[in-house]
């Protein structure tokens, strides 16, 4: 009897604490990508890219079947949970959020503010914090989900991969939430552009080349693109390598700069706040359309100097632009003040948004040319100094 009682109690211990959410893998509707928009009536619209496993079953067999492997569903409503429930009503399988790769936010909604949306992403434990988050430039988020990329069946995954190679950081939901939780930094998100230039492939590709800037209330206030967005990320400290092309008086030189680092020192001079930005990196010459012999130190050093001065000016310009046009500290200068002047920071953090545009910035760039590439001089006989 005693043994029986023991066995029963062990059984209960095992069973009562068990996870009873057993579900077969093909009874789930995997939501791969999510898009959030605001309709003209001001309602929230959610679109989801949902995997259809049967669609890519016979990839080796018949071949050439142009099935998408996914469907895109849209619903409108008031809250995210309500929208997810509405999506569920349209699906014969249980919606599963654990594999969501990316979230696209239409620019209209981004400008309106994301504060109401973000709460759900932090509170709902089904959400992966590694989910990438994008703002869609000038378009609705749903348009990205509709794109039919030839590289992957899910445009949501294409965006994640592309984000990695376009060097605009790898902004996940987690990064945005971390930035939001701090006083001295404002969040940024990469932007997806549905490329208008490539007409024929308009439904197949998109670009990631801009960065959306948000304010404290998580409203998008503006964007910077191309070179400026790369410089933004460099100063922020997430950019690791980039291609640089610059004009000398003798021609064009292109470099591949890697091991990019940043160092920020802050200074408080009475009322004035000053930030010193030190940027470093080492480079490899990829293209040299000048007669400069990079393997010759005497010739290279002036080039480096010129490069550094030019880059410093550019970065300074970008920072100034962001300070004046958007007034949002996306670089995290406030965090550096916090670290170096913790007591002073307590006084100024409440009015950081007003102070940031007045911060004086000095930029020092120290890029080195470490490698001349495959050859020292140009192709022999071409542009040789005689």
């Amino acid at each position: 009897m005693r043994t029986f009682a023991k066995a029963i109690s062990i059984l209960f211990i095992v069973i009562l604490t068990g996870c009873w959410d057993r579900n077969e893998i093909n009874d789930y509707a995997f939501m791969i990508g999510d898009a959030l928009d605001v309709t003209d009536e001001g309602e929230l619209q959610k679109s989801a890219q949902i995997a259809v496993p049967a669609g890519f079953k016979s990839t080796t067999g018949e071949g050439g079947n142009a099935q998408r492997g996914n469907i895109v569903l849209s619903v409108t409503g008031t809250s995210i949970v309500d929208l997810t429930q509405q999506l569920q009503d349209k699906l014969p399988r249980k919606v599963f959020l654990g594999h969501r790769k990316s979230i696209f936010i239409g620019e209209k909604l981004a400008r309106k503010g994301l504060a109401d949306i973000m709460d759900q992403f932090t509170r709902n434990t089904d959400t992966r914090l590694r989910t990438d988050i994008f703002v869609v430039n000038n378009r609705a988020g749903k348009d990205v989900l509709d794109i039919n990329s030839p590289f992957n069946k899910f445009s949501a995954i294409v965006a994640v991969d592309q984000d990695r190679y376009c060097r605009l950081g790898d902004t996940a939901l987690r990064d945005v939430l971390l930035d939001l939780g701090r006083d001295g930094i404002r969040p940024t998100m990469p932007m997806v552009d549905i490329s208008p230039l490539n007409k024929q492939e308009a439904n197949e590709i998109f670009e990631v080349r801009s960065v959306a800037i948000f304010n404290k209330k998580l409203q998008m206030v503006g964007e910077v693109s191309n070179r400026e967005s790369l410089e933004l990320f460099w100063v922020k400290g997430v950019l690791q390598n980039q291609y640089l092309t610059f004009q000398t008086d003798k021609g064009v030189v292109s470099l591949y700069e890697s091991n990019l680092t940043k160092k920020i020192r802050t200074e408080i001079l009475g009322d004035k706040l000053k930030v010193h930005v030190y940027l470093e990196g080492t480079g490899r010459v990829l293209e040299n359309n000048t007669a400069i012999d990079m393997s010759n130190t005497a010739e290279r050093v002036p080039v480096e100097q010129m490069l550094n001065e030019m880059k410093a000016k550019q970065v300074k310009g970008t920072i100034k632009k962001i300070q004046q046009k958007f007034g949002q500290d996306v670089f995290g200068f406030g965090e550096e003040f916090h670290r170096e002047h913790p007591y002073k920071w307590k006084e100024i953090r409440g009015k950081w948004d007003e102070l940031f545009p007045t911060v004086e910035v000095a930029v020092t760039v120290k890029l080195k040319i470490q490698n001349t590439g495959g050859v020292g001089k140009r192709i022999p006989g071409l542009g040789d100094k005689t």
Partner: protein
Amino acid sequence: MDQGIPVNVSERLTVNQAALQTIFHNCADIMIRTLQRSDHSSVMLVYIEEMTDSRELEQIISACMISHDFERLTQYKIVTRLSDLVAKILKGCTAILIDGKPYAYIADLTSFEQRAINEPSNEASIRGPREGFNENLRTNLSMIRRKISNSQLKFESHQAGELTNTDFVVAYIEDKVKPELLEEVNRRLQTFKANQLLDSSYIEEYIEDKSFSLFPQIQNTERPDTVSSGLLSGRVAIIVDGSPNALLMPMTFWSGFQAAEDHYERFIYVSAVRILRFLLAMMSCLLPSIYVALTTFHPQMIPLALMLSISASREGIPFPTVIETLLMELMFEGLREAGLRLPKAIGSAVSIVGALVIGEAAVQAGFISAPIVMIVAGTGIASFAFPSYSLALPFRILRFPLLLLGGFLGLYGVAIGLMFILIHLVTLKSFGMPYLKPAAPFNKHFWKDAIVRMNKRFESAIKRQ
């Protein structure tokens, strides 16, 4: 013994003959021959014809005819008790009884057909000795003695089995073995009370610590070199006549992962292979249950691309993943069991049918999803990687309860199952030695010869310091 049969050998040959004929009635293999010598005295020879060397027997017969004096034939033993005489005859010795002598001469002329010394089929090795035990106790002992030519190697002779009267030997090296261990082995051997001893496994079941445990607590081996190295490290071996499997005790969990050639191959390679074996062992036990737990309870733990392809291959499969896996595992175990004892001619038919049942055909028929076939095949390969067949058995069996736990409770269930197994293994002891030693309790021997093997020269250099 029946009444009317004397206890001792009588002086009168006719009495002896009558007694032996009563004892051996209906024993067609026992020959009782009476020879008439030139001086009209009689000599009686009792032997088993199939177990006696006929040429030597002839020599004895001729000696009997000529000589009167047996005392000088020193290689013969003298037996006075009739029961001893009977036991000797049954073991294959030849008894010589002479009229007027109250004792019998026993000559050991045993010679019978035995299996040649072959390479051990269950423990083959690439490098190192190729000989394996056969069914003859004396041959087996000689193989060990040849490896350890030292008077410290002791063979204690015993007999057990009330009906079978089987000889067995407890072997140990007096310098190396702990007296407590030897005492414990002998104490447990006292408890062996069966009337038959046909194989060493009979003894194993009597003397092991926990008979109801799934894990073997006494190692068995067909290899004289494994036994020798066990003896040299202070273990005790039991070798039973008629069984090619010697028992080695105490056994640890890790010795099940050690093949004999681990000590002959280069140590880095051996260490790598042992780690591989250990991983495969885990795999053979856990792969199906973890697959089922992950796909049915925790799909968020599978990388997206993998999960989508699993999901795609599961489209239209009628069974839940647990049932599917269980069916296939049962099928595989069935195939294995069926193929084990089949004649070679039918064996190929089984493997062809097996490849259909566990393979592409099952997938194409839409019964089974392709990943399950991979999982079952992977488990199968892993379960063949054990050097010790008897340690592979618990892993094979435990796969099923773990699979059910994984199917009903997810990874939580698998963790519970593993916890119970670990609790059992940690508490298990083999002749006083913790089963998981030297991993639990941990000591530095773990790095010498458990999951990796240390270089021998390096090891002895450390010892000398």
